[in-house]
C-alpha cells in the first residue's frame, strides 16, 4: 500500500514503515543514549509498539490526534513512534506552555489523549473541562518539583479513606470549596476553584491541588502561597535559560498580593482547619504521629534527604 512505496530504492515514505525498515537493518545498534541508559533500535521499536498497543487499547485509531507535552526523554521517542505506528497524528508542543496556550491546542486539534510529564497532570486536568475531546491523560516521568519557603508557602496534606467519598470529583470539589472558603475569609474575594487542580485569583495560581490514590486511600497535597516567593535561588539550583525563566513557572499570586495583608501561619491554619471541618463534615482533634508512623517517618525522611 501507500506507506510502503519507496521513492528512490531507499527508504519507504511512511514513518511507521521507515522505522520498521531501519530497525530491520540496525537492530542491535544504539538508537538512544539518555543519562546512563542506552536503547538499541530493537528496544526502541518494542517500546514504541507497546505505546501503540496501549493507545489502541484506549480506542485511539488511525487519524486520531494524540498530544505530546514531553521534554527530550526516551518516552518522547517511544510515544512519537507509537503514535506513528497507529497511523495517528502526533501533536507535540512546548513543555513550557501554560493555561490557555495548551487549552487552545487541545481544542483545535481535537486530541483524544495527551502524553505528558506527571508534573503537568494537574495543569492538564484543570483545563480538561474546556476540551471535550480529551479523554485520556497519560503521564510519565517523575519531574514534579515544589518550592517551599518559610514566608511564602504552606503545605496542606490529607490522607483518608477513599470509601468516605462517592468519587474523586467530590473530593476535589470539597477541597476546592474548603480552600476558597478559607481564602475568602482571609480577604481574597475573587478566589475560585478551577477544575481539579488549582485555586486561582486574577487568573493566577493561589494554590495547587494534587490528589493521588494509593490502594484504599486518597492522599491530597496542597501548596498555597501566602506571600510572593523569591524564585531566584530556585533557578540557581535548577538551570533554566534566562530568556525562558518567566515561562518556566506558572504565574502565581499570593494572599499578600491579592489583599495586601500579612497573614500569620497561626491565623491561616485556624481558618483553614475550620473551613475543612465544615466542607468535609468532620471534627479535627490535634494529634501526633503514632509509634509505627514515627518509624516510617524516620525512614522516609532519610530517604528524602538522600539526594
Amino acid at each position, binding site marked *: 500500500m501507500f*506507506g510502503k512505496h519507496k521513492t528512490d530504492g531507499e527508504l519507504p515514505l511512511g514513518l511507521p514503515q521507515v522505522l520498521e525498515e531501519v530497525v530491520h537493518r540496525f537492530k542491535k545498534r544504539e538508537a538512544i543514549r539518555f543519562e546512563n541508559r542506552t536503547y538499541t533500535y530493537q528496544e526502541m521499536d518494542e517500546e514504541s509498539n507497546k505505546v501503540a498497543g496501549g493507545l489502541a487499547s484506549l480506542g485511539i485509531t488511525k487519524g486520531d490526534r494524540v498530544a505530546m507535552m514531553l521534554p527530550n526523554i526516551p518516552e518522547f521517542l517511544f510515544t512519537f513512534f507509537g503514535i506513528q505506528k497507529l497511523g495517528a497524528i502526533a501533536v507535540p508542543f512546548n513543555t513550557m506552555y501554560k493555561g*490557555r496556550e495548551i487549552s487552545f491546542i487541545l481544542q483545535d486539534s481535537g486530541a483524544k489523549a495527551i502524553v505528558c510529564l506527571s508534573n503537568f497532570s494537574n495543569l492538564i486536568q484543570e483545563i480538561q473541562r474546556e476540551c471535550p475531546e480529551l479523554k485520556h491523560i497519560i503521564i510519565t516521568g517523575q519531574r514534579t518539583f515544589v518550592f517551599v519557603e518559610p514566608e511564602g508557602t504552606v503545605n496542606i*496534606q490529607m490522607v483518608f479513606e477513599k470509601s468516605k467519598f462517592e468519587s474523586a470529583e467530590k473530593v476535589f470539589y470539597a477541597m476546592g470549596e474548603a480552600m476558597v472558603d478559607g481564602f475568602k475569609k482571609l480577604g481574597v474575594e475573587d478566589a475560585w476553584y478551577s477544575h481539579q487542580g488549582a485555586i486561582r485569583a486574577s487568573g493566577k495560581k493561589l494554590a495547587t491541588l494534587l490528589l493521588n490514590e494509593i490502594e484504599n486511600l486518597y492522599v491530597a497535597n496542597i501548596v498555597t502561597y501566602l506571600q510572593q516567593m523569591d524564585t531566584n535561588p530556585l533557578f540557581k539550583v*535548577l538551570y533554566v535559560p534566562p530568556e525562558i525563566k518567566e515561562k518556566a513557572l506558572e504565574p502565581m499570586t499570593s494572599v499578600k498580593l491579592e489583599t495586601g495583608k500579612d497573614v500569620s501561619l497561626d491565623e491561616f491554619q485556624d481558618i483553614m482547619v475550620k473551613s475543612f471541618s465544615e466542607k468535609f463534615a468532620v*471534627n479535627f482533634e490535634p494529634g501526633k504521629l*503514632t509509634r509505627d508512623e514515627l518509624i516510617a517517618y524516620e525512614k522516609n525522611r532519610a530517604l528524602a534527604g538522600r539526594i
Partner: protein
Amino acid sequence: MAEKNTWRYIYNPDGDATDVVAYGASVAEGRIAGKYQLSTTLVPDTLIIQRSKEKGIIAGADVSVDKEAAASQKIKIARMARSGRNGARPIGTIQLSELTAKASRKFQAAEVDPDEPAVLIYTSGTTGNPKGAMITHRNFHFQTTSIVKGFIPFSHTDRVIGVLPLYHIYGLANSLISSIYYGACVVLMASYSPQGLLDTIDKHQATILPAIPSMYQLLLGIARIKSRSTKIPKSIKYCVSGGAPLPLAVIQDFAKAYETNIMEGYGLTESTSSVSINGVDGVYKEGSIGKAGQGVEMKVVDDDGKDVPNGTEGEIILKSTTIFKGYWNNKEATDQVLNSDGWFFTGDLGYRDDDGFFFITDRKKDIIISHGYNISPREVEEVLATHPKVSEAAVVNVPSQKGEETVTAFVVPKTAGDTENASTSADAPTARELVEFCELHLATYKRPKNFIIVDSLPKSATGKVLRKELRGNVEDQRLIDKKE
C-alpha cells in the same frame, strides 16, 4: 459525603522540605500496613498543615538539581520516592508504564498515506491564535533524504546531540527523524545548560550538533575562558545553527576552538525545517542563509508575486516537497500563504545575490512604518548590537496609552544576567550613549525614540525574539480565567 467523624490534625510549623515528603508518606504507609497487619492502633484519617523553616525543593526522582548550588543557596532538597506500578497515582490519569505493561512488544504498523499529516505543529503568528501546521510523512522523507543529505552525510556511526526541543520542527526533523532515518544514535538532553552540553558532547564523543545561536555563543564562551581542566571536545564533524543569525566572529572563533565549521540553516515549521544552508563544504557568505537546499526552489518576488532581479529586495517564496499540507482546520490561513501553484510565501523579506546566496533583511510583518517611512528593525538591532556595551537588542513599535506608536529599542547590556553586576550598574549603556551612537550610525527616521534596558529578551524555543511580547499589548496566555 461522610457522616461527621473525627480526623486527626497534625500541625508542624517548623519543619523542612523532607518533612513535607515524610509526613504524608508515613501516614499513608501506616494506614496501608495497618490494613494488612491488622494493627491494633488504627490510624485515623489525617490532616497535616506544615511550613518549612528554610528554603527547599521537593523534587521528583527524575528532576536534576545542582547539589553544590543547593548547598550554597541554603536550599534543602527533598526527593520524592520513585513511585512503582502500585504506587501513588494522580487521580484521573493513566501511567504510561501501566498502559504499556499490558501491551505486546509487537504491533502491526498501520499503512499510511504519505500525503496525510504525521504531525501537527502549532506555530504562533504575529497575530491571532496559533495554527496547526500539518507535516506529512512525505515532508519528513524529503527533508531527510534530499535536503539534509545535501549538507550532512548522516550515517549509522554518528552520535547526534538531541539538545534542541523535539517538540519543535527543527529538533524533530533534524535531530530526531534524520538520525533515525540513517540509523544514527541520538544523545538526548532533557534539560539544557551550557556546561551540560559541553560535557555531553565530550562524554559521548558526539559527531553532529544541531543547535541554536545562543548555544554556540555559550559554548564559545566556555572555550574562551577555559581553564586547563576544561577539555574542549574535538569530535564534532558537523554543526548546524538555525532559528536566528549568528555573528561572523562567533563562527570564526568557534571554528578555531572546536575545529569544526558551523553551517547556518534557514527554514520554517511550514517547510518541515531547513530549506537552505550556508557554509556547505566551507563555502560561506557572511550574513547569508545560503543557497537553496537540494530539491528546493527558492526565489524572491515583489508584492504582485513577480520575480525580482538579483540584489533586489522582495519576499522569499518556496516550492519544495517539504512544504506542508496546510493549517489544520484553517483553510483561510492556508490560502494566505500557499498559492495554487504550490508556492509558499514565507513572510521573510530578502534578496538573492548573483551566486545564488539568499540574504534575509527582515520579517515582512515586523517592518515598522513610522511617519511614512519603512524601518527595518533588524537593521537597527544590528547597529545597536555593535555598541561595545550591548549584547543584543530588539526594536519594536510600542503603542502608548494615547494610541500613538513609538519606535522603542529593548537593549540587553553585556553585563546582564550577571547578578553581581546588575544591568543598572555603570557597565550598562545609558540612554544618552545609545542616542549618540544611533546618531552616528543611523538615518534620523530609523533612530529609536525610546530605549529600555532589560536583562533578557523574551524568546521562543529556538531563540527567535518574541516581538509581540515586547509590544506589551498581548494577553497573558498563561492565565486561566473563571468562566461562568
